[in-house]
């Protein structure tokens, strides 16, 4: 399974266009948002606002990467690659595991690039918190490998790729990654898939403080964010495995 994952990783890296898109886009967004924001250097928790934006964009890049991997899984499965693999000793679950590993490995790239650019252009986080932030982003984006895989295996088409990426933009918005939310939107947003992970990614810097446009909002509790992430991971993972088992039947 591991050797297969290595081959799959190399294969994805060969797809230059999509890799370029996954890394350049979040970096460009970071530069835009932090450039436009006059308070970029203002303090925010254990760092500054620019770092907050950087973390958000790194997370966005990471989940874009993992859902991109899922896109390839969708196309593979739709074409019947699953049947070719079913003639080997490998089980369906090891296919899922291998895809998740590859997605994780690939999602390290946008995180590394965005954070490097961020730190070079004035983002600040105190101490080693940038490292914990990076680790949380990369590990947490595994949940979104399940998300993209579930979409791809369920719908088995190129269209699934576009939809899942598009939906990710909406989920990022609700995850408080772009414009800070407030009021009812914020209440709803707390239960959406990206919210928990976003809050956890920003925890080293903000420890749950919610950046909001309106009057003071109570900070998010750690247990709530973890529960959000855990629950959504289980849901996406379950759907992915069930859909993968369906992959070999022709009917």
């Amino acid at each position: 399974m591991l050797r297969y994952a290595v081959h799959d990783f190399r294969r994805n890296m060969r797809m230059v266009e999509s890799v370029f898109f996954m890394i350049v886009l979040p970096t460009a967004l970071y530069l835009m948002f932090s450039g436009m924001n006059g308070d970029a250097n203002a303090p925010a928790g254990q760092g500054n606002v620019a770092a907050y934006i950087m973390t958000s964009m790194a997370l966005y890049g990471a989940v874009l990467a993992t859902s991109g991997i899922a896109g390839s899984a969708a196309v593979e499965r739709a074409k019947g690659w699953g049947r070719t693999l079913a003639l080997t000793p490998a089980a369906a679950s090891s296919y899922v595991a291998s895809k998740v590993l590859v997605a994780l490995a690939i999602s390290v790239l946008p995180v590394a690039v965005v954070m490097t650019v961020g730190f070079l252009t004035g983002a600040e986080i105190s101490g080693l918190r940038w490292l914990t932030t990076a680790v949380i982003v990369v590990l947490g984006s595994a949940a979104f490998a399940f998300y993209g895989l579930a979409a791809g295996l369920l719908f088995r088409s190129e269209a699934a790729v576009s939809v899942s990426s598009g939906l990710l933009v909406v989920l990022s918005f609700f995850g408080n990654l772009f414009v800070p939310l407030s009021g009812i939107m914020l209440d709803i947003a707390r239960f959406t898939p990206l919210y928990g992970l976003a809050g956890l990614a920003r925890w080293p810097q903000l420890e749950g403080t919610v950046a909001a446009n309106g009057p003071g909002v109570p900070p998010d509790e750690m247990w709530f964010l973890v529960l959000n992430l855990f629950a959504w991971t289980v849901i996406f993972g379950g759907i992915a495995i069930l859909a993968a088992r369906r992959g070999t039947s022709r009917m």
Partner: protein
Amino acid sequence: MTTAAIALRNLRKTFRSAEGDLRAVDGITLTVEPGEVVAFLGRNGAGKTTTLDMVLGFTQPTSGSVEVFGLTPRHAIEQGLVGAVLQSGALLDDLTVRQTMEMVAALHGPVDVDDALRRAGAESIASRKVSKCSGGEQQRLRFALALLPNPELLILDEPTAGMDVNARRDFWATMRAETKRGRTVVFATHYLDEAEEFADRTIVIDGGTIVADGTTADIQGHAGTSTLSCRWDMVDGDPAALPHVLTHTMDSGHLTCQTANTDALARHLLTRTSASQLAISPARLEDAFVTLTASGKAQT
């Protein structure tokens, strides 16, 4: 007693749908011994592919049992005993032939990629991208993939569908080399000439059941007829009056007859009529097949 390569007992598979139940496989019992080369012959929808899907563990039987070398289909694949070339087994376009082999090889135990490529005749295309390969070349890659675990049993589902004549001939030449090594081969086809030319044993499947099972010669014998064609002169009247003719067709002076007694008919035509340009073909599997599937189960 050696373990059978494939043992099916009362195998059934029913698909449920809104329109009702489809009995794709309706009670198949058969045994394939190691080293046999068997053709599953049948029309599209006869149940051949569903049966093979169960032998490969892709589908679970509704009832009955399937064993491959005494193991469940999944276990047999895990032991590297089975290789298959499927119609629907897909390839990844962006990979080269060799990259595809190495990626799949990573999921087997230790295997020899170069050896499999060579035996499938795919060495020359090893660096070519799958998307740039012709249909025949892609099939050779699938064949190479099937050979990776050095399997004892090879399952081929319509392996030459879509191939041109040359590609087909090359494919079967490569297959012959494999059967000489003592591999068991089961192939599903609706190309009757393939079954005729290549299989020692033909199993005719129709409507999810076995309609005939025997050596290819036995199956031909079921039809019991040969085809005789000649140039017919209308001076001799209506060919319907000819003795020994079961059925006939006329097409602008060219007469084609089915007969159970070739010699008698030929003698009659040559001595009593002015028919010319006689040509006689021995009983074709095609005719046997049509007869068998039209009339239902035949005694073997």
